[in-house]
């Protein structure tokens, strides 16, 4: 099995390092032809507006959307979650999403970089907490009925926001497991496919 890591912009190399530490073959995807040999895709953190423009200009958007519609598994972190979601809130007017998972995502939902934070997160199916690293992170505002919420962030006064969601073989997190060097969420993704 080969996992493609979308390498248009962002923290793609860190995802590759984690996947390779798990013994998985990876390849960087920048051009449509590079989609051919992959069995799953990781969309990394970075700037979602930059990535979506490069996807369109490189004529990668349609072939990627088709692969996802055919059931190719995908893991998106932060910007990757925005791109894989069904709806973008507070995005650019021309910004599109791939609609692979039924979540609505608000860009920069926690504020600017000075508000970026780390916080331990309980994750369904894992016995120890995951270090949630949130960098200008998006907020998942709504999830469809087919979406499992695997982790939520306590935002006070009894409310919680979903931060790790799965629908079939699409996994998205609004935080960055690749920045903690913790391979467990990548393992969870690989086990689901």
């Amino acid at each position: 099995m080969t996992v493609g890591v979308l390498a248009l912009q962002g923290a793609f190399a860190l995802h590759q390092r984690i996947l390779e530490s798990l013994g998985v073959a990876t390849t960087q995807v920048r051009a449509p032809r590079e989609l051919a040999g992959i069995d799953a895709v990781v969309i990394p953190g970075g700037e979602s507006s930059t990535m979506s423009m490069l996807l369109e200009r490189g004529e990668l958007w349609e072939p990627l959307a088709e692969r996802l519609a055919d059931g190719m598994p995908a893991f998106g972190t932060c910007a990757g979650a925005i791109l894989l979601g069904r709806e973008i809130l507070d995005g650019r007017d021309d910004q599109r999403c791939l609609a692979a998972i039924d979540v609505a995502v608000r860009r920069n939902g926690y504020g600017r970089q000075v508000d970026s934070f780390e916080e331990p997160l309980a994750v369904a199916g894992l016995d120890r907490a995951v270090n949630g690293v949130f960098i200008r992170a998006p907020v998942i505002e709504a999830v469809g009925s087919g979406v499992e919420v695997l982790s939520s962030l306590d935002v006070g006064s009894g409310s919680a926001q979903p931060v790790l969601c799965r629908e079939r073989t699409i996994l998205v997190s609004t935080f960055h497991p690749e920045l903690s060097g913790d391979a467990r969420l990548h393992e969870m993704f690989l086990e689901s496919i």
Partner: protein
Amino acid sequence: MSEHPHETGTVRVKRGLAEMLKGGVIMDVVDATQARIAEDAGACAVMALERVPSDIRRDGGVARASDPEMIEGIKEAVTIPVMAKARIGHFVEAQMLQALGVDYIDESEVLTPADEAHHIDKWAFTVPFVCGATNLGEALRRISEGACMIRSKGEAGTGNIVEAVRHLRSILGDIRKITQADTAEQFDWAKRLQAPLGLVQEIHATATLPVPMFCAGGIATPADAALVMQLGAQAVFVGSGIFKSEQPALMAKAIVEATTHFADADILVKVSRGLGRSMPGLEMGGLETRLADRGW
């Protein structure tokens, strides 16, 4: 789990934003209109400043941090991260930029230094800092002061890539040498670089800088961006190269694509067609001021 697990301003959070900017282009902009052009072209961040480096070079005088109103205007105009420059050693300008909510501060040699011996203590801030470096010793001193991203300095405002190449080769070449150094030689490297031994040992162990390494100063064409990416830069800063070119929107898009597809000559040819005139360039020999010499 600690009692107050929600932590801002950690090293991981500060270096993390730099990780997210990798493979991207950070563009100098002087107003909201330029910021929108940059974002439309696919910039991963903008650098708000009053004059681009080539104008600072031409006008002379003291260059300072930008007017808060101008920075606020740019913040409102775009969704991508906004960076701004403070003078070397001017920690009050930095405090003000943090209060304004900029996403990254560039302690920059492009502005006139405020302190001839000290850089800002960057550990004291929640907002992350990027600093310039011409060689590995300078880079490690900045990291020891708390910089979370290094950019090779090049020579800003010249449209001439030669200094950027020199600085990148110097920094990355020395990293390659330290990777091969034995334990006794690592002490000598620390001494020669005037840098903390612990950081030299970390480079030996990891074969890379502890923070992301971007390139700035002199990038004027898509080919320049691809050149520094192939040499090992992880992202690029473009200053005068975009808004001093004949067709800024086209040039900006082309440099974004060239930075992503830096190893694909066919794409580089395609994006370089019909861009009009690049910014006028300057020879190093004719410069009155070498901005890269600022920093200690």
